[in-house]
């Protein structure tokens, strides 16, 4: 048995060899590469020859006029996205749960989670056209024409070009992309609520609304807690791909986020070290928050990630 077991251990190590090597090169090496945040990195000199500058990049960062707005925008957009992506799917799942017509329920789900499977490039192309302000009211996108037609607005709104409107556009379009998919999770939890609880509460004279409040919602509270807790870790992820596709210099003030700032500093302006410093800042805070969220998920929802 012992030799068989030894052989088995060896096979396990062998299986893991390739994934471990790939992760080492493409995920661990970049973590070591964070050293450039403490250097004046020059691509020609590489990691080893570049000059060490200690915390200079972080000092520059603190003084960078774009940094604080980007941090604030990131937190605000991410927070509202988290809330929207929890509340709307829960309400929608409760509504769908009341439906008795199977094919209709299925069709609704099929349609509403379609945007989830499309990339932000495709959705961006669709939204840029749909939300366009146009030069005259005549060539505005369908959204503005509809609002004008209903008499809700007098002049077309610049959904993507007005810095006061842009964050709302980003949040709502993100919910549009994701709510159908997120609904599945809550709907699955709803169908698992014990039916005898409904019967018992009906005997006790509870009406439909009371049942929803006292039976249905408590029934899905664990999954709501779990989803909330796990989303803590994404508070610094405001959705890079989406904003990258939709934003423009006219909305940087309210729409620029940490990830887009990292991109512009690093890959457009070639300030590798400064950009990496912003990245390190984000990585560390995100990492701590993710760890906390995993701990909380384990404690309150009995959920183990690995």
């Amino acid at each position, binding site marked *: 048995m012992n030799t068989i077991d030894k052989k088995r251990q060896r096979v396990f190590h062998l299986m893991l060899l390739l994934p471990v090597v790939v992760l080492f090169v493409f995920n661990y090496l970049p973590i070591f590469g964070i050293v450039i945040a403490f250097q004046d990195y020059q691509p020609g000199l590489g990691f080893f020859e570049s000059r060490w500058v200690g915390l200079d990049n972080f000092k520059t960062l603190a003084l960078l006029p774009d940094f604080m707005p980007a941090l604030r925008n990131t937190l605000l957009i991410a927070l509202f996205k988290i809330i929207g992506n929890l509340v709307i799917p829960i309400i929608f799942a409760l509504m769908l749960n009341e439906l008795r017509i199977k094919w209709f329920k299925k069709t609704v789900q099929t349609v509403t989670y379609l945007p989830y499977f499309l990339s932000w490039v495709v959705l961006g192309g669709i939204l840029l056209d749909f939300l366009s302000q146009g030069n005259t009211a005549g060539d505005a996108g369908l959204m503005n024409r509809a609002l004008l037609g209903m008499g809700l607005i007098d002049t077309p709104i610049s959904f993507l070009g007005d810095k006061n409107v842009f964050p709302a556009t980003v949040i709502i379009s993100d919910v549009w992309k994701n709510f159908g998919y997120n609904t599945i999770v809550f709907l699955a939890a709803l169908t698992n609520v014990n039916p005898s609880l409904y019967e018992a509460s009906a005997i006790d004279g509870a009406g439909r609304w009371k049942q929803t409040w006292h039976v249905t919602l408590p029934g899905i509270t664990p999954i709501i807690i779990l989803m909330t807790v796990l989303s803590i870790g994404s508070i610094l992820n405001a959705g890079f791909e989406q904003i990258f596709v939709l934003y423009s210099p006219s909305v940087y003030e309210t729409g620029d986020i940490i990830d887009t700032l990292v991109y512009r500093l690093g890959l457009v302006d070639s300030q590798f070290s400064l950009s990496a410093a912003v990245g390190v800042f984000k990585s560390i805070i995100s990492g701590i928050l993710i760890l906390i969220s995993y701990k909380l998920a384990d404690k309150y*929802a009995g959920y183990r990630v690995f």
Partner: protein
Amino acid sequence: MFAKNLSTGRKIFIAANFVLIMLITIACLIPIVNLLARSFSGSQAIIENRVTLWPVDFNLEAYRHVLNTGEFWTAAWVTVKRVLIGVPVNMLLTILAAYPLSKSNRIFKARKYYSFYFVFLMVFNGGLIPTYIIVSQLGLIDTIWALILPSAVPIFNVILVMNFFRGLPEELEESAMLDGASQWTILWRIFLPLSKPSIATVTLFSLIGHWNAWFDGLIYSNFTSNYPLQSYLQTLVVDIQSTLMSGDLDAIASAMNVNDINLKAAQIFISIIPLFVIYPFMQKYFTEGLTLGSVKG
């Protein structure tokens, strides 16, 4: 629509709920249908903004034009290549990692070290710039490998498959071992055939991921001829933005019923046709996959 013996209030609620759900569902589709209609519409109708949800002056010129565009096909080929290589690579590495990790710490002695190695990467990452530097130092820029190797081990998928493997009865493995089967045989002949739903889910995740990815193509290519389809589309979409803002629509309108809007719309819709083809499979497996991946003790 109504069951018998319902109170009036209940009936009103059911009807209102039904209508509201229908409106939300339709609203979700409107932006997509709007652009789809434009892709089939004539140039003049688009400029005059007469297209809403149904094509005006229906024609296929935009699609014909796109299918004759060399850049479109070049980009589509890059995407096909990345899917054909990337998905099998993802699956191979996912399964190879998931199987040993699905064993208990008692059976696989070193498991806890490996799981730390994987979990650490779910918590921390090097970020955009260091990753870019590594990829470029390895000389992968402008090669297909830059689109495949950095995301070759999708840790979320590993967890999903690992959890599924864990749910299979341990006796299966024990009895196979008594029959002298090696671990490779057990994985290939017993575990994989029994895990079809989770393998299918993960394959779809990987397929959609590769099909939709565009940012890596954008940063890891110096030449646009190496762009996958979605990166190529991104450059077009950014163009739509500048066209819409500068507003010289009349300038680009041509007599052949092709203009920027319907041309780009046509490319966007051609790019998502493959997703529609696999959509029925997605529906079948994603719900399963999602519930598999969540709540597991």
